[in-house]
Each structure stands twice: as C-alpha cells, then as structure tokens.
C-alpha cells in the first residue's frame, strides 16, 4: 500500500492550497470539500495524477442541509482508486437558489445517470449534462422530493383513518 490518506491530502494541498479544505477521516475515509467552481479541476487532478489515479466514480449523490445558509445543498462524489484500492469522498456545497454544478460526465461516464438521479431528487442543475431530465420519478412531478422542505405527512389528509396509521 503505497498510497495513504496523508499522501493524498498533501498532494491536494500542494496543488490547490486553501481551495481544498475541511479534511476529515471518518472511519478512515478521507473526506474533503472545495468551492463548487473547482469541482472539475479537483477531480481532473485526482483522475490524471500518476500517483492518485482516482479513475472510478462509485457514487454521486446530494444532501440537503436546510440550516446551512447559502450552503444548503451538498453534492457528494465517492471516488475509487482501483489500483491501490483506496476510496475518498469529495463534497461541494451550493446555494439552493442557484444549484448549478458542472457535470462530471467528461471525466466519468457513470456520472450520467447518477447526475440525473441527483437532479430528480434534489434539483441540482448539472451544467453541461446532455440529458438532464427525471430518471426515476414521474415526469409530471414538479418538486424535488428528497429536499427537507416537506412535512413528513400531510396533516390535512382525511382519506386515511388516523388511528390506523398511528397519528
């Protein structure tokens, strides 16, 4: 095992300086973030660098933090170095009023459907995506269901007996 979390962190800090920040290692998984304009530059570096070689995108999703002003939506990339078998987690945060993030399709083809899913559920607008439309939900849906802005249950509903549903 040549590649360690410290090496990755050092290389990233050397290349991007303050632009990459908030390094953490929960359960040994290196996690860091960068400004959202930098997401492609950082991933391109992670992909191309001869030592890092993070050339596989395992997962791409988003998280909604309603209480973080101007950083409500986080887009999370899980990258995998298949040669050294090391995974890292990379986050970018965006304002919910302008959820524009550059698409990662040029780097990782697997980002195509995962970005569609992230758009479907969180409304992240991936700039440059060739086919950004809903993938799982019905096309007529006019909201993004995984955002934490809806009550868990509609309290005004009368078509279900409250006693039967524990309300």
């Amino acid at each position: 095992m040549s590649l360690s979390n410290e090496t990755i962190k050092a290389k990233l800090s050397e290349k991007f300086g303050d632009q990459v920040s908030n390094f953490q290692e929960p359960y040994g998984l290196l996690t860091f973030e960068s400004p959202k304009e930098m997401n492609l530059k950082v991933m391109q570096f992670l992909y191309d660098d001869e030592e890092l070689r993070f050339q596989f995108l395992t997962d791409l999703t988003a998280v909604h933090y309603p209480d973080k002003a101007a950083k409500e939506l986080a887009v999370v990339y899980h990258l995998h170095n298949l040669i050294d078998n090391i995974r890292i987690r990379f986050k970018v945060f965006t304002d919910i009023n302008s959820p524009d993030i550059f698409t990662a399709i040029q780097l990782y083809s697997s980002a195509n459907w995962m970005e569609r899913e992230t758009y479907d559920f969180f409304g992240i607008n991936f700039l440059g995506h060739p086919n950004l439309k809903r993938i799982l939900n019905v096309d007529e849906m006019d909201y993004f269901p995984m955002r934490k802005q809806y009550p868990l249950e509609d309290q005004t509903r009368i078509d279900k007996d409250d006693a039967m549903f524990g309300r």
Partner: protein
Amino acid sequence: MARPVRFNIHPILADTKDSISMVNMPEGHAGEGFFATKLSDVVGLARKNSMWPLPFATSCCGIEFMATMASHYDLARFGAERLGFSPRQCDLLMVMGTIAKKMGPILKQVYLQMAEPRWVMAVGACASSGGIFDTYSVLQGIDQVIPVDVYVPGCPPRPEAILDGFMKIQDLVGEERLRRRNGEGYKQLLESYGIQ
C-alpha cells in the same frame, strides 16, 4: 426397504354424494316443461359463476393470491378456474400490491384494454389506499386512476379475505342490471376518471 408397489386395480371412487353444490335457480315461474324468469337474472347467474380474473400482482398480496388460487383455498370453486393473462379476455381485474405513481398509467391502460362488462377488485392496503407507503412515489389507492368495485383490507389479506372479496364481486355481478353499462351514471363515473 423399498416401498411396495401398489397397483391401482381397485380404485376407490370419490364419494360425491351431497358434496357437489349447484347454484340455485333464479326466481321465476316454473311449470311443466317450461321455466320463465328475467333475462338479467340468467345472464348474471352465468357471468358470476364463470369469472375470468386477471391478476395484476405487484407484491406480497400477489403471493396470498397464489395461495388463494392453489388447491388449498381453491378459487376454482367459485367458477374462476381460468386465469386470463390477457386483459382482452378477462372481466375481473384483481389489483394486488403497491402501485407506484409510475405504474398508474399502465394500470389504467390494462383497465382500458378490458372489454365491458368489467369489474375491479383492490386487494390489500396498498392497492386500496397506498397502505404504509404514505410517500411521494406511491399512488394513494388505485381508485385515483380506475373505478374500483370491491376493496379487500389487510396487509396482506388472508386468502379467506380474498375469497370473501371475490364473493362480494359475484354478488355485484349477479345483481347487475343489463342496462347499467349504457346508463348515464356509469358514463359519468368513467368520465370522472377521464375514460371515454
């Protein structure tokens, strides 16, 4: 030790005396060599004892339906021996299981492909009301897309409950007026679902 071979040369004939049930005759006037009754009663009698169910099974209620169809509970006793897997041949749509919103248009299309007269039975909590899936992706009851005749509660319902629902359908079928499907009320019902 090997089992002895039995040659079935003296088969025991099934004792069917007093164990075969026949449907009762409809009300009418009987005399020597003739019987007069209402046409709707005869048609209803024939229809209700030869239903062709179309199982639309998407989840665990479908498993209960398999038990209902099998020999132990035996839906064939009610004249529903023949399951049709083409909507064009069937007259009873049995919807069993969670119907996601994306499945809604498909369910409606299956309903539209069925010929009149057609009946619909919603089996289980999910098909009837969305059940525990009180969420953005699940249809909150199939009666939002197609008209339903009988709801069977349960999560999932026991085969007895499905049989009970089926017998309720039989009652509806047997008592249906011949002109109901041409009537104004039925037309309005379908129009409320956007069906011409």
